[in-house]
């Protein structure tokens, strides 16, 4: 899976592309955990180019939230489509993870 990354100060913006499913999630898991373990604990995930998330993808996001949380960092997500947002709602993730409409709101609320 293609994963674009960018930084805004100490905030790492991770933007995966396409499907976040059983077969593609390990690539995101590896990329995210490497950066977090390397000390980049301020992370937001850009969902603009994600069109599908299964529980395998949710699992990676929860894991990243736990790792950054344990290190006193930040973890959020932004730019989700309504369909994907509903999956997070069903999973109960909207109440435990931070989801913002766009990157500007992430920067303002960090």
């Amino acid at each position, binding site marked *: 899976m293609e994963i674009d990354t960018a930084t805004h100060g100490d905030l790492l913006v991770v933007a995966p592309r396409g*499907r976040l*499913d*059983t*077969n593609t999630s390990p690539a995101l898991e590896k990329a995210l955990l490497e950066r977090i373990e390397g000390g980049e604990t301020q992370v937001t995930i850009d969902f603009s180019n994600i069109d*599908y998330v*299964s*529980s*395998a993808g*949710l*699992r990676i996001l*929860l*894991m990243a*939230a*736990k790792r950054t*949380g344990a290190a006193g960092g930040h973890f959020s997500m932004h730019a989700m489509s309504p*369909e994907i947002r*509903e*999956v997070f*709602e*069903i*999973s*109960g993730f909207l*109440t*435990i*993870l931070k989801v913002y409409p766009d990157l500007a709101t992430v920067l303002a609320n960090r």
Partner: protein
Amino acid sequence: MKTFRSRLVLLGGAVAIFAVLLTTSFQTWHARMELIQATEVQGEEIGRLLGQGAQATILAETGGPQFSVHDLLDNLLSGERVQAAWIMDGSGKVIAVGHGTVDSAELTELDRAKIAEVDGGTLSYFTDTALTIVTPTTAPADGPHWTVLLRVDRSDLDASLWSEIGIGLGVLFVAAFIAFLVMSRVAGWLSAPLAAVSADATVSAPIAAPVTAPALQPAAPSAATLVVTAANRMDELGRLAAEIERFAEDNELPPRAAMHLDMSVEEIVSNVIKYGFEAGDIREDAIELSLSLTGDRLSIRIADTGGAFDPLADAPVPDIDAAVEDRPIGGLGVHIVKTVMVELRYTRDGDRNVLDMVLELSAPAA
């Protein structure tokens, strides 16, 4: 209106059979309606394939493009004497198997030879315990061309049909049939789901035969089906997802419904692969996904040959209100499936797990 026309044809066929009834003996007519009839007690031929006309009607109705392979299978297995049924695609590959009166059955060398030999025709042969019939589905030109192999119990074919039925029941049967035709016109049944003639050769209750087969759905113009088999390997998930995407595009499913379908199949199939099979036990046709769309309802069946595993009951229930630190990683998939589906049913059918789900395309957001 394809539906209307096909029913008209069916009704026309029924009227034609009725005309035959008037000009021939009851027994001859009955032979046309039944799949199998006893002929001689001690003779070589104690059962034979009968009623090509009636049988063609059955298979044209159940074998059309609007029916999924499991609808056809259910219909075949509703026969009291049917031990087992197989459905093969055009290349002779088995795409569905079902068991009726027996717990397990395998295709024999003889069966395979007959399937190779049949070439679009119909043939039947005996073994010690069973009569086997190989016949094509007479689907419309644009529908799937399947071959059906039916294994029928031989033990109760020996009795004389005529002596068992008698004139009284025959008259009752005729009366019921006339009533059926009258109701078809008076009550406007032409536009309602029409019960098809059953393939069941029920000697003791012949009246029930023409009006059973509840598994058949009305053939709505938008009905569409997809049947895909997959091996129990994770890399098959991508192929299933691509098939689902194509089905969703072809049938213009709303994006949200398409995603819920995609997710549910991924969750269930990945669980089946993870928990249903011993490590290293890879089977090429381990999993069968069937989709059938009728109006706003999409029926989804996922069947597998793995160990008995009910994903609905056996998966842990996640606490979706737990805080991020307490939230266990995993267990979410089944929760999502249960939330997006309006109906869910697990059955252990012989050596298969069968999960039936229904997705409403325009269901309100959770």
